[in-house]
């Protein structure tokens, strides 16, 4: 599997993501934000603070030249995974529905969270069981997912909610931590699976998630 990880100015999780995907045998290429053309089976928008999160988180990233390649990849039906700031970019670019606001308590939250697998009818979570509880770290100041009632109903009816927080840390609508699009090819989540890929560090459930893209 070929994975392209996009590096924007301010991205800081690209190497952890590269480490995790190489660990499961994927061929990884880091793509600079100024590159428009790249080939991959899976494009990853990693965590960080693209362009300093100026204006709104991910507002400027959506205009980067590399996003043209990401949109092209989406059109072709390729897999896209957005983690944390990457999720915010997918929302800003309109590839996923909804928007992000400041955490309800206005604090930056960095800690482990218990999550429930809501839908595993997709590549990302097929190696996990529906309703399974897993733990992943979160680290964000703007992870308060917002969607209006019609959109929430749409996500629920189409089974597009992938992960929910057991104890909502940030005020997210309906406790949502991750969603996908209707094609089940584009995924966004606020927690960091790439930081949960080593047993030595206490948790490797992230590998199971990434392995879903292999076949």
């Amino acid at each position, binding site marked *: 599997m070929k994975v392209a990880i996009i590096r924007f100015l301010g991205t800081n999780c690209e190497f952890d993501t590269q480490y995790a995907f190489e660990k499961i045998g994927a061929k990884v290429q880091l793509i600079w934000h100024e590159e428009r053309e790249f080939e991959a089976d899976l494009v990853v928008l990693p965590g960080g603070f693209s362009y300093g999160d100026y*204006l709104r988180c991910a507002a400027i990233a959506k205009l980067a030249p590399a996003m043209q390649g990401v949109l092209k990849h989406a059109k072709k039906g390729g897999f896209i995974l957005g983690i944390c700031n990457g999720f915010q970019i997918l929302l800003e670019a309109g590839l996923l529905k909804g*928007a992000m606001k400041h955490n309800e308590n*206005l604090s930056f939250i960095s800690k482990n969270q218990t999550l429930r697998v809501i839908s595993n009818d997709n590549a990302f979570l097929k190696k996990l069981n529906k309703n399974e509880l897993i733990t992943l770290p979160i680290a964000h100041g703007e992870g308060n997912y917002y*969607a209006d009632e019609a959109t929430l109903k749409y996500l629920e009816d189409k089974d597009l909610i992938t992960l929910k927080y057991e104890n909502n840390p940030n005020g997210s609508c309906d406790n949502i931590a991750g969603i996908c699009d209707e094609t089940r090819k584009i995924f966004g989540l606020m927690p960091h699976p790439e930081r949960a890929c080593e047993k030595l560090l206490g948790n490797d459930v992230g590998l199971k998630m990434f392995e879903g893209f292999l076949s």
Partner: protein
Amino acid sequence: MQVIVNVFLKNGVLDPQGKALEKALHSLNFSGVKEVRMAKQLKITLDENDTQKAKELVAKMCEELLVNSVIEDYEILL
């Protein structure tokens, strides 16, 4: 020409920063405060003297970058 743009979270979308300020004002005994909404203000200086054209240009900027229409509304002041 200088154009002011105010960007607010839409009515009905909980504004965490506004809420925090509202509580802080209540704790200072400003009990008459019913709600605080926090806005972003942008001052844009344009090389344009036609008011209508300036307004249209800034509206386009709002749609394309400055505002996230899922959660935000804006007003343009000339």
